[in-house]
């Protein structure tokens, strides 16, 4: 732990230990405290202009108690002893009237592996002045407003520092600090009577020295993508091959698929697969999916989870074969397994299961060749860049509007389409209907990563 956060760390630890002892003294058999401290300075943009500068810091603490098989939870945003005592009593009161659930449990966590990315702090980021942050924001605005056709609706640059802590009455003590600069833009293209869809991007950097250059390059790329959508036309209705960009793959297909890797869903048998399906072929053999919490430059990077369990990179699907499910202690108990470090949440929430940073493995074919092959199969086709719609994880059905979608005819991009709807089913799309996977991958919003996918039998309804 960096000396940079010494006093904040001590204050957080003192409050967390007090809360833990209040919880036990109020009647809990075992207790767990999740705490956090954070600072952020933010310069926000709105209506094509600088809007607001702000500066905040604060603590938050949550306590989970077990009385036999009954659980209670309460949280507050204070380190004041009276408030900590109040929430410890409240958590015990809730446990007192909650019915038994045999799967609640609190465990002592192992140590974090040496290979994990232990240092998520760049001291230079903690010393950035408001003046420098203003200069970074000017870089963002300068790049975004170079082309007058781009209308900046919202955005900004934020510098945040944080400490996360999990302790429990069985001896778990995990703490990590992180720093990051983040920036975002939301806007649209406007030219005469043409208006594009809203588009949004966000990016983080954990390295102060490379931040200015990354701001410029990322904003330039984003504005170029938005303005391309000004050339619009109509698509035709058809059922057949559709190309999904990496963002569309993650938004439509992988987000729903990840529901089925949730150990709690498996335990409740509301998912598609169960323990009996491990090591079985469940999806197309071209498909490999990994969850990797140790990628330092990604927003999902963490060395321990909401329950203090160390995280680790894990294969979920390998060549279409189901390898693992994501488990917290609750799911692990229900399935008679051990936690995989996938308890998600923060000080004001109870642990839930979630993935960290999903990475879909690339294929062997270049994007160029993939487009050519689709063009040879089908005279015209749709390329989905973004998606605004529904995706029902239970049934796997999805239906929604293809945003920023390209209409290709005879192997050439003709224009961008609006009011075009797509629908299909994720299990078929990632199973028998998966046509091809690109060699190139893209990291979306500094977190998950995916190649481009070509899927067959997708219904396209032109507006």
């Amino acid at each position, binding site marked *: 732990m960096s000396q940079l956060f010494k006093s904040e760390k001590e204050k957080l630890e003192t409050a967390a230990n007090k809360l833990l002892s209040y919880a036990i003294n109020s009647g809990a058999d075992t207790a767990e405290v999740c705490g956090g401290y954070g600072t952020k300075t933010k310069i926000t943009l709105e209506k094509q202009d600088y809007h*607001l500068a702000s500066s905040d810091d*604060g603590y938050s603490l949550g306590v989970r108690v077990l009385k036999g098989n009954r659980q*209670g939870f309460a949280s507050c945003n204070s380190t004041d002893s009276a*408030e900590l005592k109040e929430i410890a009593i409240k958590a015990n009161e809730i446990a007192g009237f*909650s019915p038994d659930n045999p799967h609640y449990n609190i465990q002592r966590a192992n140590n974090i592996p040496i290979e994990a990315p232990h240092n998520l702090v760049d001291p230079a980021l903690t010393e950035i002045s408001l003046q420098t942050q203003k200069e970074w924001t000017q870089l963002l605005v300068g790049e975004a407003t170079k082309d007058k056709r781009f209308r*900046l*609706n919202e955005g900004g640059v934020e510098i945040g520092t944080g400490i996360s802590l999990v302790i429990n009455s069985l001896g778990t003590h995990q703490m990590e600090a992180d720093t990051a600069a983040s920036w975002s833009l939301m806007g649209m293209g406007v030219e005469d009577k043409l208006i594009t869809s809203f588009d949004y991007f966000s990016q983080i950097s954990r390295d102060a020295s490379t931040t200015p250059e990354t701001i410029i390059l990322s904003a330039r790329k984003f504005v170029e993508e938005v303005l391309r959508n000004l050339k619009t036309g109509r698509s035709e209705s058809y059922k057949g091959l559709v190309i999904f960009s990496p963002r569309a793959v993650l938004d439509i297909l992988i987000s729903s698929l990840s529901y089925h890797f949730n150990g709690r869903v498996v335990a409740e048998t*509301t998912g598609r697969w169960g323990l009996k399906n491990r090591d079985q072929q469940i999806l197309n053999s071209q498909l490999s999916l990994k969850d990797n919490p140790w990628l330092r430059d990604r927003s999902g990077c963490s060395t321990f989870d909401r329950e203090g369990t160390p995280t680790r990179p894990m294969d979920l699907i390998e060549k279409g074969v189901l390898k693992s499910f994501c488990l917290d202690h609750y799911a692990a108990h229900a399935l008679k397994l051990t936690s995989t470090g996938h308890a998600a949440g923060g000080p004001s929430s*109870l642990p839930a299961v979630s993935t960290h940073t999903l990475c879909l493995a690339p294929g062997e074919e270049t994007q160029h060749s993939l487009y050519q092959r689709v063009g040879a199969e089908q005279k015209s086709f749709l390329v989905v860049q973004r998606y605004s719609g529904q995706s029902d994880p239970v049934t796997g059905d999805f239906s929604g509007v293809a945003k920023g979608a390209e209409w290709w005819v005879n192997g050439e991009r003709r224009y961008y389409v609006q009011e075009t*709807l797509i629908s299909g089913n994720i299990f078929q799309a990632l199973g028998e209907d998966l046509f091809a996977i690109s060699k190139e991958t893209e990291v979306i919003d500094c977190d998950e990563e995916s190649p481009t996918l070509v899927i067959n039998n997708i219904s396209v309804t032109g507006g």
Partner: protein
Amino acid sequence: MKSISELLETTLAKAPCWAEARYHRRNSQSLSVQKGLVKQAKSNLTSGVGIRVFVDGAWGFSSTSDLNPHALEKALRQAIECAKSLSQLKKSNLKKLPETKLARGEFKIPGYENLKKMPLEQKLHAVLKAEKLTRNNSALIHSATCVYNEIFEDKIVVTTDGANASSQLARNEFKIGAIASRDGEMAESHESVGRTGSWECLFSRATLDEMSDSAAKLAVDLLSAPKIPGGNNVLVLSPAMVGLLSHEAIGHTVEADFVLSGSVAQGKLGTLVASPLITLSDSGIVAGVEHSGGELLVDDEGVLTTKTVIIKNGILSSYLHNRESAAIYGVEPTGNGRAWLYSDEPLIRMRNTYIEPGTQTLEEIISSTKEGYLVDCPLGGQADATGEFMFGAQKVTKIENGKLTKMFRGATISGQAFEVLSTVDAVSKEFLLDLGSGYCGKGQPAKVDAGGPYIRCKATIGGVQE
């Protein structure tokens, strides 16, 4: 509350500029049950003060959870420093907020005390009962979920130009989900209600038993429902779907911050944007409707909430404003400045957004429709600066020769909002604010409600193609 109000006034007396101090204490509780097991029972307490200043045309903001006078003064100094750092860059000509009528006094929405007095244990029993009723409704129900959330809000807003308003309200929501299963096929349904007020308000339209029954039956019915064919169709939208359309597709495009950025509503004031049958409003209080989910008496800038008629007989007549955008447009603020937590700055947000009722009955509308679909039970939606929208619907029923016939599985409908509203040729007299539970997202969440009558229009259904 009085001592906090005085503390805020004392802090602001030291401000050399326009300043606003907003105390906010939020106590929220959440219960959830699935398959007979309690998944979540929790209580959260968040409190603090957000201080916002306006210096030479720039906003500065800082917040603290510490109510010590020194901590508040520190937050005020930080906010001023932040604003000063931006003032040289800000291009806007607005250097000072104009005077406006601001709220003073106490603003309480009934139901707070009643809901607070009811033990959480009793609420948990109701959640357990609803889940069990849903699960046991049919042998085809594989799993049921029931969630109850409640939020108690206490706020005080003080500004250097005269606002001093303390407000109190409680919001609650009840959600039931069911998954039906047969031969490996699954179908899911949701029922929800969201209110501002007491526990009883939640069940004023449908009892807990009726909600459970409805969720279970819909999931079972959807199991055998086919997928819908895609295409442009005549649609009769239910009040809940009309609410989504009003909120997502129209409401967001007329929020003045979006308008100033170039939304599709820019420059359209005074022009015909919808069928003359359409009058669309946003209001903190809706006449004749009690305990709506977005009920609000005073906003987070200390402005009294008024009814804002956005479209009157098809003509765009107003945008939604906070104090800053109202000053830019030279109009009075509409009471739409809302913040989620003390540490959030107020943004332009909707409250209850709805289309006014018409003169026909639903029966008349259905019987005069030769071919189309009745679309109900929203699943959420999104809209764009262009007015292009997308809504999910759980339940779509075919209308053939004036009669409701076959039910289809959930579908997505899409179109350009103003174009779709221009196709409206029938508006019912039946009226409901019926958005259910859930929140609007715009960087921060906000509790809103929306609804209206049944309307008949044309839009695209995103279904299957052969």
